[in-house]
């Protein structure tokens, strides 16, 4: 059985079972098991950020690789993009691990979560997986990275800021090829639109259910996202249309910035 067909149940929701991890890692099944810090840029908090990000990149590598394994009949040019993405995400893991060790951290120092893997691999079409992983999670990471490197610079950590800027440049390419291929695939088969919409609704409902048990985390996440804003410039690089960007701004509670340029 393919690993993407294995299942686990979290708070009553069926999700894809976790990918393989070394015994040193503690896998959290919801946000409340993750470590949080009052001082978000303390030395320990910095290591936790890098450790969490490193595992997220490992998940992105695994998702791209699993798409290659699960969809052997996908167009060759799209498979090439996924193979490249796997390589990029591998470099991201290595770069973040190197930085983590430079700051005195180690594998397994903090709990990790595999939420993106667990949700994305519930989709049975490549278009839906690209919509969830690349167009939603990675595009959200573009927003995050667009702001985060400034935070690291503000505390004098130029090295980590550099790592994050390089990762951001790669992520834009991953979001862009997903946007282009989703459009192409939907044009060829309109039924895929329903698959993509169903996948997005599943993500939204799963998020809502998991966060319902932890209202403090839900409120905290909303505040953090509002504070970081939407990375409009890079979303344009990644081939989001103005209409799509405007919709994202509205959803983020930033209607007054609609159609404005640059970071909102």
């Amino acid at each position, binding site marked *: 059985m393919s690993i993407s067909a294995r299942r686990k149940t979290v708070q009553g929701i069926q999700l894809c079972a976790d990918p393989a991890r070394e015994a040193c890692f503690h896998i959290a099944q919801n946000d409340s098991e993750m470590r949080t810090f009052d001082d978000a840029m303390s030395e320990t908090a910095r290591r936790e950020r890098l450790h969490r990000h490193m595992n997220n990149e490992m998940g992105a590598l695994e998702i791209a690789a*699993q798409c290659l394994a699960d969809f052997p009949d996908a167009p*060759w040019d799209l498979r*090439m993009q996924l193979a490249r993405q796997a390589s990029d995400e*591998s470099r991201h893991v290595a770069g973040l*691990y190197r930085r983590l060790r430079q700051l005195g951290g180690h594998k397994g120092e903090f709990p990790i979560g595999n939420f993106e893997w667990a949700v994305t691999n519930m989709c049975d079409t490549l278009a839906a997986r690209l919509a969830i992983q690349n167009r939603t999670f990675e595009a959200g990471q573009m927003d995050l990275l667009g702001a985060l490197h400034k935070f690291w610079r503000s505390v004098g950590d130029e090295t980590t800021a550099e790592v994050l800027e390089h990762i951001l440049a790669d992520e834009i390419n991953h979001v862009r090829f997903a946007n282009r291929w989703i459009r192409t695939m939907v044009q060829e088969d309109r039924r895929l639109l329903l698959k993509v919409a169903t996948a997005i609704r599943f993500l939204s409902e799963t998020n809502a259910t998991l966060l319902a048990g932890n209202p403090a985390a839900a409120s905290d996440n909303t505040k953090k996202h509002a504070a970081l804003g939407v990375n409009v410039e890079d979303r344009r690089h990644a081939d989001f249309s103005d209409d799509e960007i405007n919709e994202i701004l509205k959803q983020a509670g930033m209607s007054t910035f609609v159609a404005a340029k640059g970071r909102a």
Partner: protein
Amino acid sequence: MGLILREKAEYLGTFRWMEVFLMETLARWVPTTPEMEVKVLMGRHIWDSAQHADALGKRTFELRAPLHYTLTPLPPYLDLMKELAAVEDTPGRIQVVYDVLLPAFTARYQEYLKGSDSLLDEPSYRVIHEIVNAYDRMRQENEALREQLKETLAFDARLAEEWRRKEAAIAEIVPRGTGATLAAGTHA
């Protein structure tokens, strides 16, 4: 070997299958292998094998076969590849790729070059030289990883030797005479 044009396309189409097989095997192993450093190595080499398959697939088109023409190898070789792809432990997987497949594929490529013409078939030579050079780098990266993980991973050299022996025992892998120029292209 003295290959005619059609047979060259058949060889390169079979080589393309091998590279796609390597890409897909590494892709399946990334989420199911626990060690982070091994995932990273395999993830990077997925892209290498994809590029090799791409270059071979473009070359088959130049040899009057379909673009990305791909031929499944003869049954004994296919069965062996399936056996190797079913290995589940991390040291075994590393040995399959870096101690067995890359050296074996290198030998198959070199055998092809012996039977071709470096002037008339120069584009194939260039593609294959790029692939073999990349294999050298991939194996060096694998050696560095093994050094890094030597305290945690134990390798069984006899197992790799047995797999190498089985691979080398299969002389013919290319389904020749299938009519590459007439065949419909297969997706890979």
